[in-house]
């Protein structure tokens, strides 16, 4: 059961707005080597790896 936050608005919003199918497409990332490498090994798929630091000059919230 959805139990929180503007649940009363949910039916209205879901009616008025399209589902997020039109959202900008993004790459779906595993965030840890442990999880990602295990999936690669299990599936035999190649790996796209891009490491990144989630801060700049000590300020978080930006790559």
């Amino acid at each position: 059961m959805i139990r929180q936050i503007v649940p009363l608005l949910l039916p209205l919003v879901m009616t008025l707005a399209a589902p997020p199918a039109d959202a900008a497409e993004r790459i779906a990332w595993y965030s840890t080597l442990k999880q990602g490498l295990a999936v690669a090994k299990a599936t035999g798929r190649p790996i796209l790896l891009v490491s990144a630091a989630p801060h700049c000059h000590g300020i978080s919230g930006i790559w």
Partner: protein
Amino acid sequence: MDRSYLSHAGVIAASREFVCIRPLTYENAIEAPFLESLFRGRSGNLENTVFAMLGPDAKTRLCRTGRSPGFAFRSPDQMAAAMKQILKKYPSTKTAPRPLPLLPNVRLGLNVSSCDNTPLAIIYSPDQAVRTKLQQQLATLAWDKNHIGQIQFCVATRAEELKSLAGKTQKPGILIVQPGTYGNNGQLISAVDPDTTPAELGDAIDFALLVSEFQQKTMRQHIVRGQQLGVNWKTAIPVTDSGGSRRRRPSN
């Protein structure tokens, strides 16, 4: 890093058949040596970003490694074409279900979802069995075509891990959060009980995606404002990148 490569439609389309891994640089001492083995900067140290394409064994290098895709490819189109060629060598024959991609903890979950401008879904329960069930439910949703890459996920086992969320003490379930501008706090958008149905869970996620705010950020303004506000992100290991955003030309 030139992000035009990673937002290129052809690269994204090809990425669906790759296992895409984005380790968080300087946030895991165990991962750092592996990243260093792929690429070190001129200083000989780990830099902010590392780019590689590897075989499933994580050893076979499928292109030139470097700081960014621009080290290996002249353009996003060239990268997309190379990825398609690589996929011919690795035809997908195994159909193992993909697990839910999890960020290491709530702190990094908030920060990364803020960086990506996405909501964060926190699986919160002290009960391992409940967490496993919820992760399995979310995994199905996370990889469907309407949701892939649109939301981040992490796990919390104790209420203390949720102290940076605005609002009352939370009950176990899935908490869907809008991260703050600096990813050091978050606002609860929606929450679902552990016994939620897949349909209700999907509605809650869609609702979060609809109401979450896209925060336009520019690097300079974000940093200046963050410094004024006293934001000071502590990494797990020392940052060894001296320059950061020096632009380098691809060599091929």
